[in-house]
């Protein structure tokens, strides 16, 4: 097991190196630089700025300097926000994105499973139909439309929540809901279908014939076994929710990390592009690793060591 993890960590480092390299060169091929603007600054000032940030050096020097910076986790100053370093931006933005992401994750998992179980237990009843139509809506409506609808109903019409901005717990509910809707729907459908499958198994029938109450059968025996696919979906989902919230962050005016991911490219904010890309890559790679490990722990049929050849 330990050997497996070490091996995986080594491959993560290699992947990171490739990502950093590709990003670096793609970024430099793109025309323009961080000082490109409608009102062109005098060439002397631009040259001075380029020299200060080391952008006048040959590419291989910049590249190696950059690799050292990544290795020492010091991404340097942002070009777009004077006086703030990329490390500052990540330290400010990531906790916000993480908080929002975890809240959304909790909503998605809790309500998703609840809906799924209800639907499965009362198959073909109105409970089943209404929760599954909700799930269809959740999956098919894109999050930014969901966000606008939520804002309209709960903030403008009912006035229960503020429309946007970030501050108290009250501010977090609408964006978390908007972010959670899609995975919630997916989890509900997943739970329902596996639950139905499990409920038809022989051991459940045995339990029934032994006279256990329905509650015991569903929650003690069936639910546990039907959660496996949900857990395996959690890994990519966590990474996705935490890194992919920029649309929601923009609509709700949330100072998370997601916005940097997109805006830094328009701004040609080289250091931020590299910093955020590296940071997100690490989260994604670790999440994938974690899922693979947990997989093996929950389901003994999957042996992690068997994957060693990969």
């Amino acid at each position: 097991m330990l050997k497996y993890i070490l091996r995986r960590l080594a491959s993560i480092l290699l992947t990171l190196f490739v990502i950093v390299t590709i990003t670096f060169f793609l970024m430099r091929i793109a025309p323009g630089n961080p000082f490109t603007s409608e009102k062109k600054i005098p060439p002397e000032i631009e040259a001075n700025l380029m020299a200060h940030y080391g952008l006048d050096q040959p590419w291989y020097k910049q590249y190696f300097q950059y690799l050292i910076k990544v290795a020492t986790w010091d991404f340097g100053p942002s070009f777009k926000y004077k006086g703030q370093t990329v490390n500052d931006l990540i330290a400010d933005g990531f906790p916000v994105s993480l908080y929002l992401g975890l809240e959304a994750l909790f909503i998605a998992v809790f309500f998703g499973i609840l809906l799924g179980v209800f639907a499965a237990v009362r198959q073909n009843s109105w409970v089943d139909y209404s929760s599954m139509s909700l799930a269809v809506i959740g999956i098919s409506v894109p999050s930014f439309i969901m966000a606008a609808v939520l804002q309209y109903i709960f903030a403008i019409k009912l006035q229960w929540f503020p429309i946007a901005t970030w501050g108290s717990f009250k501010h977090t509910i609408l964006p978390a809901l908007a972010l959670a809707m899609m995975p919630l729907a997916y989890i509900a459908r997943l739970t329902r279908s596996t639950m139905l499958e499990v409920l038809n198994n022989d051991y459940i029938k045995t339990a029934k014939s032994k006279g256990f109450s329905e509650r015991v059968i569903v929650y003690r025996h069936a639910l546990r076994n039907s959660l496996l696919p949900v857990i395996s979906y959690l890994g990519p989902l966590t990474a996705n929710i935490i890194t992919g919230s920029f649309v929601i962050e923009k609509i709700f005016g949330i100072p998370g990390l997601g916005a940097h991911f997109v805006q830094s490219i328009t701004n040609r904010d080289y250091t931020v592009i590299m910093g955020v890309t590296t940071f997100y890559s690490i989260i994604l790679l670790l999440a994938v690793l974690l899922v693979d490990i947990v997989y093996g722990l929950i389901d003994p049929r999957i042996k992690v060591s068997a994957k060693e050849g990969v």
Partner: protein
Amino acid sequence: MKKKLALLLTLLLALGTVLSACGGKNSAGDGGSEKEKPKQEFRVNIKTEPFSLHPGLANDNTSGTVLRNTFEGLTRIGLDGKPELAMAEDYEVSEDGTVYTFKLRDAKWSNGDPVTAHDFEYAWKWALDPKNESQYAYQLYYLKNGEAANTGKAPLDSVGVKAQDDKTLVVTLEQPTPYFLELTAFYTYLPINSKIAQKNPDWYKNAGEDYVSNGPFKMVTWEHRNKIELVKNDQYWDKDNVKLEKITMHMIEDANTELSMFKKGELDWAGAPFSALPTDSIEQLEKEGILNIKPIAGVYWYKFNTEVKPLNNVKIRKALAYAIDREAIVKNITKAGQIPAMAAVPPSMFPENEKGYFKDNDVETAKKLLEEGLKELGYKDVSELPVIKIAYNTDEAHQKIAQAIQDMWKKNLGIKTELENEEWAVYIEKLHRGDYMVGRMGWLGDFNDPINFLELFRDKNGGNNDTRWENPQFKQLLIQSQKERDPEKRLELLKQAEKIFMDEMPVAPIYFYTNAWVQKDNLKDVAISGLGDVQLKWAYFE
């Protein structure tokens, strides 16, 4: 199966009714009805994190909006749009117009330190010091040796700004600058508390004890990319005229969210000049009768690359410019009361430019000019003309305008065109490099003077010219205007220069910009200058 389907349909229908029931009337704000005294708190969205709240480093509108309200320069643009004395109590100008001697009033920083002439000298030299990397240092090139010091060709000590004593500031200019008192209100010319800045070079990075300012408000909170809070500065010399107690500036990117917040009453203002209204909402707001529109000193124009055939021919350029129906563009596409532009300098500076130098949509003349132009270039007819490429940066409004113009040129002149769009930074590079035929660009004035809109075309290779056009007479008139001390005569020279420019038509002006916004009814005296700069010094809720 039938039962299932029926159920599903019923559910969907029910949902539909719920949603549509919510789509009732749009209430516009909730202000106006309170009887008690309104809270003097102004809430607004500034859209993005400011680049920097250091006067010497700021180079964008957002930073400017914050700095204009927290700091104060030698002069300030007043409610009437003209510079009035602010930190300066009095000033004298030398005979030749190159030496200004400012007497400072007794004013204090927000921490109680006195504002001295040294603070101005320090701030200006700091911005010019090349090692501080100010991207707007060139705003100070009017000072003697300003450019030389900034490019490292002269020592900083030689720059023409000197604190004779605590209350006297002597400024020497490179050449007479008739609009210098406009400039001293600009944010690069603001003072810095030199005592603090020398002790703590990071003073400007966050709100706190060391972030001190000398204007009507002081900053108490700066949550990066979330919000800025300003409160009234009780040390400000003119605090009796400041009525707002608190200003909250949110940073929300999404224009629709901002407008919803305004409608719900969470903001007191939505739109320009703090941010922008969503374009597709403008028509609706106009119908509701709550839209405010004010022209600003800015122009949207199509630049011609005058080195590329057939745009090297002035008659072809003119034909293209004349064959655009600007009225149709501002009515049907931009919709925010923009003024069709048939001149380069905005009407706020040259009032007669509301009419301009030629007739809008003058297809007859355009056709004639095209004929002559084709002959001069040796083409038999329009079909031999190379395809003209219209470039713009990716954006819905730019695209619609380009499509409209493409259509007009085809219908009116039979000219074939192609549209090309690129991402912003790529696009700018292309234009600055001269790798284009026709390209859109906007230009906004930095200070209230026509020179802003003409100067960029003085030199063929000037950083912002892009058209590769140059004219010795035009250049001569601009140089002369700089030396002319009589304001009337000076404007006359600039007018002559503009006439040459419009005769040569290196750009086709399309429209003059406007600011469009909605605001609380009882909010008064928000000062928006002709440039579109906003100040809240005098603002209050009735």
